[in-house]
């Protein structure tokens, strides 16, 4: 009856489910410990210790925080739109979680003649998928701001939409530079391409480096992190779009922010830093297949530290400055960079280092 289902397909589906389960849980654990790391690193930068009371070195602090948030009263304002108010945090969190499906964290290899892949899905348009899903995240913030029936929340939501749509352009233009260089929109293929040419795209001077810088700045803005955390500017807007949220719904916004940080960093690593780069050309297929993800995670940790470092250093931008930076600086720079890349690739398709 089910002859058309081959055993391999069933296995692949089960493997995908297991991987998805592992990845989602890993992301949420990473979120929990990111909060602790952030508080500790920021504490040290401010010449204090940060949380160190719950468990050894405060390592159980995220668990205590989670229990506290889960048991807090979940207040919905009486005049709020109850359905949208409830759905908005889910709409912010789910896109953040599903982006990781297409991110390859290590090279494919054969383990006992069975193929093993370090991604959940390898689709031909994976970067398109990433941009599409990442743009959905803004709905969560806007709807949260609107459904709260609070002027500050609404302003925060509006800021979120304006900011994220503006910076998506620069981010996409920077990423397109890499797409032109690699000749592919498949993230796995982009990493493979960098490993074949032995240098990551961030070192393709000058276009790669410029694109990387633009992508990084736009990425910080996309995740609503300091110094671009205008949507939740507590000085002006209470807490912005999540002013009226508490308890578990609030913590979902919190999760979405941190998981988005992981996503932006992971995509930056894939596009510009060669993913598992030093592993593949130098360590050999099998070793790289196992050590590769470690290189990827090390780079991810560096990015996370960078995000925290920025937050503890830079003050928040004024809103018109933010828009000016996005539209008058980053977007034109990314566009010119894209055009220069296109011209270079058209003139020297086989590549001339240091340009290509």
């Amino acid at each position, binding site marked *: 009856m089910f002859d058309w289902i081959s055993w391999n397909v069933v296995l692949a589906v089960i493997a995908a489910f297991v991987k998805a389960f592992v990845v989602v849980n890993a992301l949420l654990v990473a979120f929990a410990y990111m909060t602790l790391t952030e508080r500790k*690193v920021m504490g*040290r*930068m401010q*010449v*204090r*210790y940060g949380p160190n009371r719950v468990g050894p070195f405060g390592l159980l602090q995220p668990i205590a925080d989670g229990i506290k948030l889960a048991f807090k009263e979940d207040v919905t304002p009486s005049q709020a739109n109850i359905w949208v108010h409830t759905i908005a945090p889910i709409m912010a969190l789910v896109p953040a979680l599903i982006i990781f499906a297409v991110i390859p964290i290590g090279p494919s290899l054969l383990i006992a003649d069975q193929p093993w892949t370090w991604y959940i899905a390898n689709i031909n348009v994976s970067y398109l998928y990433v941009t599409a899903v990442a743009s959905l995240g803004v709905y969560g913030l806007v709807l949260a701001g609107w459904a709260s029936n609070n002027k500050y929340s609404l302003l925060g939501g509006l800021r979120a939409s304006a900011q994220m749509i503006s910076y998506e352009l620069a981010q996409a233009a920077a990423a397109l530079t890499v797409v032109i260089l690699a000749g592919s929109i498949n993230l796995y293929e982009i990493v493979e391409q960098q490993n074949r040419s032995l240098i990551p795209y961030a070192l393709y001077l000058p276009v790669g480096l410029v694109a990387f810088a633009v992508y990084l700045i736009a990425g910080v803005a996309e995740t609503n992190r300091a110094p671009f955390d205008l949507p939740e500017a507590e000085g002006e807007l209470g807490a912005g779009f999540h002013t009226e949220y508490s308890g578990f719904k609030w913590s979902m916004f919190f999760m979405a922010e941190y998981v988005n940080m992981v996503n932006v960093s992971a995509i930056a690593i894939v596009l510009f830093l060669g993913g598992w780069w030093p592993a593949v050309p130098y360590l050999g297929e099998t070793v790289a297949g196992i050590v590769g993800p470690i290189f990827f995670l090390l780079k991810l940790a560096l990015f996370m530290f960078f995000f925290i*470092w*920025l937050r503890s*250093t*830079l003050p928040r931008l004024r809103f018109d400055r933010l828009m000016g930076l996005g539209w008058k600086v980053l977007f034109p720079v990314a566009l010119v960079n894209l055009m220069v890349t296109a011209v270079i690739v058209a003139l020297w398709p086989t590549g001339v280092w240091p340009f290509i």
Partner: protein
Amino acid sequence: MAYVELKAPPKPSNAVEEALADFSAIAKGLGVTLRHMFVKPVTMQYPEERPELPARHRGRHELERHENGLERCVGCELCALACPAKAIFVEGAENPPDAPVSIGERYAKTWIVNMIRCIFCGFCVEACPTEAVQLKRVFELADYTRESMIYTKEMLLAPAPKKEPEDSWLPGFLPEAAKQ
């Protein structure tokens, strides 16, 4: 008077210079935070580490004694009168002639301070003619009930000296209670 000449950085003349100035400012800021990561935190790990308070710290009251163990307080109520927060209540009584509590004619039968009201101004210390009231370095006064914040004379009295001082100018009699 010596003045420090503060020079404003030169105004950037074009957009490129301005951008470079901005980036160098950001890099400078990032350097400051990175450097401070390796500075020893100034935090005092309180229950394990304890602060070295200055000698004249104004904490909880203490009722002092003379060297021979007799109380300094003579129940004059000047501290209660001086207290701007009306935190102190004193009730004086005649000293029993056979077993005097203080060296004067009178002593404080009750001496109560309400630590919810006390503002630690130290006026009671200044008002005291016999230097009986002192504010000491006890600072851990938090508690759960209003009742427990009222400190009575028994709680505030300084411990009696272990033995009789050898060269005291005071009359050499010790009450039985102070000897123990």
